[in-house]
């Protein structure tokens, strides 16, 4: 394959990937807009009542509606929003009367930090527990790990939050109950978000790794006298990496959604908390912008996982490569 041909192929793939992603984001924004329209509850009425500190009269509600340009037909309003959003102008929040762009810029770092931290927790705990689950023989420890993983994935986030507050903050006094100041305040939010994801990951790691360890080349490696650990990390994990990565991508996407609960409970000024308040107040512009970012983050996390998976595991590329590039599946993933 010539260099130019490779470039063209990669270029084509990137272009298609971009068009694809933009399309999904457009659909997402239109969907959010439609959902807000369908949801009963009138932003103008709520805003008029907020201003008055009391239920407003019908005339006042109408005045607010005109003031906000909400008297235009829905498609026109969506088109206006899209026109401005493309230029990075997300309008003004109905609830706070301040431009949304800066409001979100202030918050997105908080949420990304929370997701990054939780991802580290999820991957570390998930891989360690998963590897243990794959290599341990049946016994009390393996059973405990499985039950732990099941519990972690099935308890509601708010319940786990209160439990941790009770234990770590009120009982043991190790960390503050809430807030975002200094490393100690990061422990609980990351644990609440990271542990359920770690539970899911650990199961995937355990199953795929065990499958990989049953392959003939592992037997060969054992015959060569490799140590069990090096077998797991040199032979087992690279072969199990594909499915693990695709689940990891999805899991990180769901972490974004989890921030909504965790930020509320621990008082973190992130995008999740912003989204909740916008939804409750029918603050359409703020809701649109935050939903687009949360949804976009979810999609990007998944797509990035696909790309990384393609780099790590050539077998998966046939699903994203153009036709005619199918290769005979390799038995072993060679490092790329």
């Amino acid at each position, binding site marked *: 394959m010539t260099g130019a041909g490779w470039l063209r192929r990669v270029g084509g793939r990137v272009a298609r990937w971009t068009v694809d992603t933009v399309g999904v984001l457009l659909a997402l924004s239109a969907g959010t807009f439609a959902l807000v329209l369908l949801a009963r509850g009138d932003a103008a009425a709520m805003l*008029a009542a907020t201003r008055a500190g009391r239920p407003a009269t019908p005339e006042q509600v109408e005045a607010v509606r005109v003031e906000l340009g909400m008297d235009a037909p829905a498609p026109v309003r969506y088109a206006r929003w899209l026109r401005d959003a493309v230029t990075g102008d997300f309008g003004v929040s109905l609830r706070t009367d301040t431009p949304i762009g800066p409001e979100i810029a202030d918050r997105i770092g908080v949420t990304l930090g929370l997701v990054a931290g939780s991802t580290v927790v999820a991957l570390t705990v998930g891989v360690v527990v998963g590897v243990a689950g794959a290599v341990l023989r049946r016994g009390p420890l393996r059973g405990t790990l499985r039950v732990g993983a099941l519990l972690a994935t099935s308890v509601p986030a708010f319940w786990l939050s209160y439990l941790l507050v009770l234990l770590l903050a009120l009982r043991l006094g190790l960390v503050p*109950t809430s807030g975002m100041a200094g490393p100690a305040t990061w422990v609980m939010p990351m644990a609440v978000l990271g542990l359920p994801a770690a539970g899911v990951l650990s199961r995937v790691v355990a199953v795929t790794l065990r499958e990989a360890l049953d392959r003939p080349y592992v037997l060969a490696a054992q015959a060569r006298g490799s140590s069990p650990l090096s077998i797991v990390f040199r032979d087992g994990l690279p072969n199990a990496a594909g499915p693990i990565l695709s689940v990891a991508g999805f899991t990180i996407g769901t972490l974004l959604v989890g921030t909504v609960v965790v930020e509320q409970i621990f008082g973190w000024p992130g995008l999740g908390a912003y989204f909740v308040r916008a939804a409750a107040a029918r603050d359409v512009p703020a809701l649109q912008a935050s939903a687009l970012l949360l949804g976009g983050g979810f999609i990007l996390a998944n797509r990035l996982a696909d790309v990384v998976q393609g780099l790590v595991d050539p077998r998966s590329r046939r699903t994203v490569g153009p036709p005619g590039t199918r290769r005979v599946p390799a038995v072993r993933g060679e490092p790329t």
Partner: protein
Amino acid sequence: MPRPRPLVAALAVSLALTSACGAGADDTASSTTLRIALSAESGALDPHAFTGNFLLLDALYEPLVTYGRDGALEPGLAQSWTVAEDGRQVTFDLRDGVRFTDGTPVDAAAVKWNFDRWVGNERFSFFRASRVITTVEAPDPDTVRLTLAEPYEPLLQELSIVRPVRLLSPASLAADGTFGQPVGTGAWKLDSTSATGAVLTRNDDYWGSRPELERLEFRVIPDSQARADALTNGEIDLIGGAYLAPITPIEARALGERDDVTLLTGAPDVSIMLGFNPDGPAGDRAVREAVSRAVDTTSLARTLLLDYAEPARRVFPPDVPDSGTDLPIGFDQAAANRVLDAAGYARDGDTRAKNGTPLALRLLVPATPAEGQLDPRTMASAIAAALTEVGITVEIAPVDAATYYDERAEGRYDLTFFETLGAPYDPSSSIVSLFTSGARAPLWVTPQTEDLVDKALYARDPASRAAAHQNLYDAVAADVGFVPLAYRPRLWAVRDRVRGFAVPPSDVDLELTGVSLG
């Protein structure tokens, strides 16, 4: 506050996990800084806008007239005022020598400039004073004169509310004429504000009695259980109030049992009521009377509000000015059954029916509790159970908060909850929104109530005003236009190191003048 760098912080967590870092906040607490929880970010602190938190605005800005205990009006930035004989002019004598924290004098010109920002402005049309005042004059630097279109007795009390009547320094505006810096005359000035909280420092040039505290640190904690936890853990000194950091009755009970926290309850200023839609089965007075007789408000207050609330007997709690006398109502299940029997609603199994139509009512409730409130569905279930006992079927319809106000305005209910607005707005603001057709979702409106509301608003002297309000309450009670359920508790809680804190006159005030820290 520097913005935390997420990735660095994430790495730091692993360090934090390995080195057990004590977070006992009390040992680092300063004796001059009061730490206060806030349920939501403070918003833009412009007194002429609608987004700022009431209590922060109250700490920064002052009115001409102050709402004192039991609704008594006291001098604020005006040391006295006189109302003309015909009630159409109010003249304020301003307090001498007061300056905004940027040094601008509080003179008649500055007051006029503030009033001109909202008087006659369409955006403030909800505020009756903005339509009643026709001219604002400053005949000399010490005097401000308001001329009214008609005599309007609630004017002075309305001038004590928070938005938009508090005074902002005219020199604080941004270059383009929009709101710039929050500069007022209050006992506190703004040091910093962010999405996680705000810091206020003492205004050392304050004209009134200076607070002992030097700093107020507000921390945003949206979750009410988390706020109670932060208080018990010594990270926060003060929570409570309807607009600051609300406490639910359940949290209050847990806090009240602790040795290191003091729970304070203030005289209630809001009542919770059950309202009827006259276009439906509840249009029949017999049905309304049966409902009001069937609900045992005493046990409701005891079981659902954990005795932090009293059963209601009036439209407004007794401490609200002109709340009148207790109305002749009360729990009497036998009477409820008698009324329904007499009106021809015959029992057929569990449900009564008249002319083949079963007696079924739709009870509309918000699905999520408001800040600091118990879940309205609990109260709804208790009421439904009480009505079932006298043969009325109840369908509880929970809808989300935004939808709730729409459905209530559209009359998609037979029964639903109403609340009064609370100090310092009452009684005048609530009687307009509850008993006149101009309101978006009134409680009970007849030509008679409309007329009596006007009489109450425009009464010329205290005696006739009290009588006019009582006539209004009596007329609504004669129609059985509503069922008073409970007076909502005002709950506050402080750590024991906080000395001298008392529940403020209204939940929009932050009264910390005599407070110190041990």
